[in-house]
């Protein structure tokens, strides 16, 4: 697959944006604006490269808690996305139906099966007018790959020939446990063969390689050939979350050795070497990203809290008498009305 220069530049702009917003989110947490955040430093290529391939007019994506870069590449409103880290509303306040991004999933492996069901539904509905199927893509990590749900999902998907792409970010760590203590055999992609499924393991820090591999997986699924596994080999350069202390399980030397070259720098070098972009472009990308991060920050600050009464909404389609009663009591006690 050949990406145009414009596409390469767009991928770079996205990666720089994600890098800046991600680092900004960490500082927002330090400053007390966000209670917690799960940084994705080092995974920009894996996330942007895969998220970029999604056709938001027809596909659907099931993220984990670390897919800010995917959400950004899909054009999800970043303030609504961050609202989950702001502890405003679990799962984020963006509309999954409109954005095509399922709510943020904090249960490791929790929504992998959902993607299979969604994709099976796509098959039941029949192909779109162009004869191909919409695709569900589900993200999960090396740690999540140990969950039984992931096995069930892969087996169901293969049995049903569901158009689903299992996108694994193998970032070397599940909090403090390294991949070698997690993934027997060393590769999640290798397991696909056992399900009679195609798979590809890709350099997850090469955004072009990721985008190409993901596109091929999408083509495969769209054509009705069933599911595919894409395993992006990458590295979690930062802490697991803003409450983590990686010093307890890895040294800085280890980090430097294992991390490899920074994915953003790698793309920049490639664009420079191929004469695709020049200094003013790179400078501009950083300026835009900084401005964007500022805008998001302002948006988060303006979010405010949801009214407490909303806690009682959406439990059921229509509230129950018992819930009404609890809401009434809460109002009485909290607002003295």
């Amino acid at each position, binding site marked *: 697959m050949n990406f145009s220069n414009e596409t390469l530049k767009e991928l770079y702009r996205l990666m720089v944006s994600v890098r800046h917003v991600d680092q900004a989110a960490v500082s927002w947490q330090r400053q007390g604006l966000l209670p917690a955040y799960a940084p994705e430093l080092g995974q920009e290529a894996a996330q942007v490269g895969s998220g970029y391939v999604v056709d938001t007019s027809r596909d659907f994506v099931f993220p984990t808690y670390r897919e800010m870069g995917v959400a950004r590449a899909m054009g999800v409103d970043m303030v609504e996305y961050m609202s989950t880290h702001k502890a405003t509303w679990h799962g984020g306040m963006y509309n999954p139906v409109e954005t095509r991004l399922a709510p943020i999933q904090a249960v490791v492996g929790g929504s992998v099966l959902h993607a299979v069901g969604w994709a099976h539904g796509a098959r039941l509905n029949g192909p779109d007018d162009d004869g191909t199927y919409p695709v569900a893509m589900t993200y999960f990590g090396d740690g999540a790959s140990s969950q039984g749900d992931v096995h069930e999902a892969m087996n169901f998907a293969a049995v049903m020939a569901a158009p689903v792409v299992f996108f694994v970010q193998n970032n070397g760590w599940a909090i403090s446990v390294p991949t070698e203590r997690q993934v027997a055999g060393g590769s999640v992609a290798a397991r696909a063969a056992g399900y009679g499924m195609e798979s590809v393991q890709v350099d997850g820090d090469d955004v072009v390689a990721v985008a190409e591999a993901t596109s091929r997986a999408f083509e495969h699924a769209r054509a009705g050939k069933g599911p595919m596994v894409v395993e992006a080999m990458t590295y979690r350069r930062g802490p697991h979350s803003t409450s983590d202390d990686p010093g307890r399980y890895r040294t800085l030397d280890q980090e430097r050795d294992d991390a490899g070259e920074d994915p953003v720098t790698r793309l920049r070098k490639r664009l420079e070497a191929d004469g695709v972009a020049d200094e003013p472009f790179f400078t501009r990308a950083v300026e835009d990203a900084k401005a964007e991060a500022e805008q998001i920050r302002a948006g988060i600050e303006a979010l405010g809290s949801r009214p407490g009464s909303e806690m009682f909404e959406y439990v059921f389609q229509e509230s129950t008498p*018992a819930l009404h009663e609890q809401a009434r009591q809460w109002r009485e006690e909290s607002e003295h009305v």
Partner: protein
Amino acid sequence: MSSMTLSRAINSGLRRALEDDPKVLLMGEDIGTLGGVFRVTDGLQKDFGAHRVMDTPLAEAGIIGTAVGLAYRGYRPVCEIQFDGFIYPGFDQIITQVAKLHYRTGGAVKMPLTIRVPFGGGIGAVEHHSESPEAYFAHTAGLRVVSCSNPQDAHTMIRQAVACDDPVMFFEPKRRYWTKGEVDEEITGQTPSIDSAAIVAAGDDVTLVTYGPLVATARDAAIAASDEGVSVEVIDLRSLSPIDFATVEASVRKTGRLVVTHEASQFGGIGAEIAASITRRCFYYLEAAPERVTGFDVPYPAAELEDHHLPDLDRMLDAVDRVMDRHNSLSGREG
């Protein structure tokens, strides 16, 4: 009207649901060619096709989890769990995902799943095939939990459950699958509503509240009590979450006495919830402390012992005697 068994009534309800809405899908283990181990889905795959009545791989989380994904794109999956004791591999998906997604998405995503569970004991089954796990689900916000006790309700309620936009846990009293009754299949809409309780025997002295498999036993107990001059009102809850407290409250205000009975263990069960709520609502009307007649707080025992474990007519009558402050009609002991 036609006469049919409770399992047939669910079958005909599922058939109507499949006919009424092309988005309704049945999924589960052995529900297709075999028609389910209890034959509840008998003939449906033949008539509606394997794409609408689907034999899934054998994995409960897989069944529920893929049903969630189908619901995301507008399907109404009806999942069969083969036996009560095998719902736990799917428990996480139900509690963590199904129950919360409508809430988490601020109402943007509906989860109109129906999860059918044959439950309860009394059929001499092997281990894990006689359990009553309903309280786990009733404890969880966002799930509706219902149980039917007779063929007409089985038919009406399964159709209402499938049509309901909330996730519904549908507990089928497996030992009553073969109970026969008249069923009107031309029901329309929501009457009686799926979350309303029903007074199945009127009485003035004691309110006996139950659901599912024990409704028939409770009715027998009411007849036996009336022979001794005690008038028992039997309430079939039908819905365990939410609970129709208004109906129970009105009855207890009249009788002043409450007995709750279920097969499930006592501790933290539906009976505890009803006793606490009704005591608060009816405190000044109560003539006696509410009584519970339940399965014991033990793992479900082997079939040779299950008759000791399951509430039966005698244990219900004992409790009636206690709240009436009467000598025990069998032992002659003081109440």
